């Protein structure tokens, strides 16, 4: 098998090769590192590539195997979104203010991946502090969509999504505060899971909106997502909001494919509205038909408060962010720009360290929490959030999961929405509600419009990951969208 094809394989396909020692972790890791050096000049998916760390881990993985040891992800090269802390590896959050920040600790999710034997290829690009939907708000560069280099990969986990889609990582961690895993997964034609709030520890995930943030996985197919999720999920004593519930073997649960007979899929009418791109709606409708043919029953449901999702989200997420980002003051770590006195040092550090979008959100959030405005904005948003959750609870009493497009459109052009924050915010219109209600969701490829991928979103109840993955897997078994690879190729000199 030539190395050129290795990066097309899924994790579950590669694991048996590693286990039977038909392939070494070092060979696999090298293939990925070579692919990164060949393609990342065009794609800009990685902020930091940790080639040495990766090869070390790969060598260790091979040694372990030589000693007859095994681990669930032994030798699998993965990428980590750069808002997730990695011990001894720079974690920039796509920001100048943390450009040289080296955490002395691993995020719990990262520690679990290491424990499972994974190889860390590097840290992927993100909108600054995960605030954005395109990676255009990264302080360093914009990641290109591997299906069309003039387009955005989505965001904020755009680096992770593009890397996985283009074969620059076998899978990746992202973070999802309002759609930041699912939206780029959709725009890059891969699978992205936003677990239930509390399913995966947030310890070491640099906070954006603490009541919304959740680490998720980005993979090329559903089975790989199940595999990775099982490793990172579970209670963590370091995160008081993490759920103390057993973690199912998601991958094994997939194997009992009972088709979709008896499964009730809710189709929320508020998610099929004017403004959605026709090609996207067509693709999603077709996907619904496929599921119906596989035995599922489609039921139209209503989530009446959907229109308030974006305003609620941008009040709560910004309020929390304004507080979460207060710690970047130049006193203990990160950028410090000296001023004449302490206060000037604070002001200048933050003025030069943060980008425009981050400042915009800090100001919005500060305003929403201010005396005299708190009740009208933050508190009201929290009350509306409860109504939104009740929408979901009611709907999920009638059906097992909800299905809708992940995004209203396919990947947009780089620069297209940069000067119109509201348009940018609206690209998350189908994803933000799920974070506000704390439930789980998945985006999976379901078609193309003009060569650009379309994502189908399934949303399920708290801790409904297992069911969600099973339904997604059943759909995937009946389609081949997940097998499509972007037309990007290594520019080989001399053939």
């Amino acid at each position: 098998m030539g190395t050129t094809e290795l990066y097309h394989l899924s994790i579950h396909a590669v694991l048996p090769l590693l286990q039977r020692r038909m392939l070494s972790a070092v060979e696999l890791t090298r293939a990925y590192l070579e692919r990164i050096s060949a393609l990342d000049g065009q794609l800009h998916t990685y902020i930091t590539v940790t080639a040495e760390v990766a090869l070390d881990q790969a060598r260790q993985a091979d040694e372990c195997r030589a000693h007859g040891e095994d681990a669930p992800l032994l030798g699998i090269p993965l990428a980590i979104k750069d808002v997730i802390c990695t011990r001894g590896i720079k974690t920039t959050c796509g920001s100048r203010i943390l450009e040289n920040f080296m955490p002395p600790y691993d995020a719990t999710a990262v520690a679990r991946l290491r424990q499972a034997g994974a190889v860390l290829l590097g840290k992927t690009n993100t909108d600054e502090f995960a605030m954005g939907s395109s990676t255009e708000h990264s302080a360093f560069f914009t990641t290109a969509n591997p299906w069309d280099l003039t387009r955005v990969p989505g965001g904020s986990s755009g680096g992770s999504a593009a890397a996985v889609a283009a074969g620059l990582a076998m899978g990746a961690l992202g973070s999802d505060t309002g759609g930041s895993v699912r939206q780029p997964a959709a725009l890059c034609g891969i699978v992205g899971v936003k677990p239930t709030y509390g399913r995966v520890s947030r310890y070491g995930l640099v906070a954006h909106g603490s009541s919304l943030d959740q680490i998720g996985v980005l993979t090329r197919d559903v089975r790989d997502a199940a595999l990775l999720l099982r490793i990172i999920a579970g209670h963590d004593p370091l995160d008081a909001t993490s759920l103390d519930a057993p973690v199912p073997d998601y991958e094994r649960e997939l194997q009992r494919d009972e088709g979709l007979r008896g499964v009730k899929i809710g189709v929320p009418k508020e998610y099929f509205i004017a403004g959605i791109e026709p090609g996207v709606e067509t693709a999603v409708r077709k996907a619904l038909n496929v599921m119906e043919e596989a035995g599922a029953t489609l039921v139209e449901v209503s989530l009446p408060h959907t229109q308030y999702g974006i305003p609620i989200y941008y009040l709560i997420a910004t309020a929390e962010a304004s507080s979460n980002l207060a710690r970047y003051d130049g006193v203990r770590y990160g950028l410090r720009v000296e001023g004449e006195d302490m206060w000037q040092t604070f002001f200048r550090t933050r003025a030069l360290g943060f980008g425009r979008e981050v400042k915009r959100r800090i100001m919005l959030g500060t305003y929403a929490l201010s005396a005299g405005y708190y009740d009208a904005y933050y508190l009201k948003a929290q009350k509306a959030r409860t109504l939104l959750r009740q929408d979901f609870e009611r709907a999920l009493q009638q059906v097992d999961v909800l299905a809708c497009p992940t995004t209203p459109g396919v990947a947009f052009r780089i620069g297209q929405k940069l000067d119109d924050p509201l348009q940018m915010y609206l690209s998350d219109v189908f994803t933000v509600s799920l974070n506000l209600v704390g439930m789980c969701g998945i985006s999976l490829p379901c078609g193309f419009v003009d060569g650009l991928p379309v994502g189908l979103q399934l949303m399920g109840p708290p801790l409904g990951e297992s069911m969600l993955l099973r339904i997604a897997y059943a759909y995937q078994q009946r389609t081949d969208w997940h097998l499509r690879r972007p037309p990007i190729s290594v520019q080989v000199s001399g053939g």
Partner: protein
Amino acid sequence: MKADLRYDPVIGLEVHVELNTTSKMFCACRADVFGAPPNTYVCPVCLGMPGTLPVINAQAVRFTVMTGLALHCQIQTHSVFARKNYFYPDLPKGYQISQYELPLCTDGWLEVETSAGVRRVGIVRVHLEEDTGKLIHVGEHSLVDLNRAGVPLMEIVTRPDMHSAEEAYALVTHLRQIVRYLGVSSGDMEKGAMRCEVNLSLRPQGSQELGTKVEIKNLNSFRSVRNAIAYEIERQTRLLEAGTQITQVTMGWDETAEVTRPQRSKEEAHDYRYFPEPDLPPLALESAWVERVRQELPELPYAKRARFVAEYGLSEYDATVLVEDRAVADYFEDVVRCAQPSVHAKLVANWVSGEFFRMMRETGTPIHEVRIRPDDLARLIALVANNTLNQTAAKQVFGVMWQTGRAPEVIVQELDLGQISDREQLAALVTRVLAENAEAVASFRAGKATALRFLIGQVMKATRGRANPQLVEMLLREQLGEEQ
């Protein structure tokens, strides 16, 4: 006419108490940070590093509930932590995790004794938060020490129910006594383990309306609390009598000059933008657990004092002195338990509040470092009670016990201090003394009673104080009588 107006001070207190938990409020760092080299008791969580999260310290919650119960508060089974947002270099996260709308304990009271009698002071709330770090100013520079950042801090807010410096002083000292009794804090104001802010206003006597509030900060001792309030009452009275309006201001107490001064208020009109801490779910307590904590509360000072009076027949004064410190009170009771029934508790009280306290004071020994075991002290007191030792000898033995922690019997033997109660031995001695002091014998016979004291003294002297004085007196009277 203005001069005839009298003003009533209205005083409320905010008291911060550092809890002596094993670890900090939200991380695993040790909390006994006092005196440690700067920035050695820190971890990613209390340094506010990116991505770290707080986890509530159960011991701190228990300590706060204990305090709330001791202050007769309602314990809220649902309380919420909130973020108090402001920038300062000693505040690593840019916000302090505190409690705001839904504190752990509400609506309590505490009674204090003043010269004017027992006063009840309302407690608005007791809540839990984290301490900040400290700035150390060196020349032009300010250095940041974050050891203290994240140490559990309990805030007790009283109602404005106090009306004099004495009352406020009584309240803070009683609060200290209670937190020490509960074992939740050292209560050392000098070490910053207890900090106090005073809210004070004056109003014309008889008026129900509150005057303009002045806040006094930087009170580093109990004396400061009393003196600053007294000073501020005087200052405001003078202003009011001169017809000057009081302006709402924060004053700092200058301990050396003994005056309050307006503090530079760099943080005017703060908007803390409180909101519920999303990293911590609401704190839910089970009522059964709260009840268990209530059952396990130690006996508190006033109750203990009343019991000492009733159970041991002590005077109010003795009981007050003995219950001042819970460990001392416990020690006293241990001695009583070992000494009874042969020795009366009053005798033990005399020993503990007398010789024992004197030695503690003179040697600066805290109770937990005292080497004398309660049962040893009990037996020493018994030796006096049964006339084996006289007072002088007993004090000598006590001194050795204090230094060595050894048993009284051993010391008595070694120092050859046992009381001589041997009748024949003493009778011979008495005969000799009478023979040698004919003059005194004569004046006794002439009816001079003091002569007998002198003769007893001579016998005591001859035995280096070891003779049983009662027996000596009896023998003297016998022999003097026989001769008659």
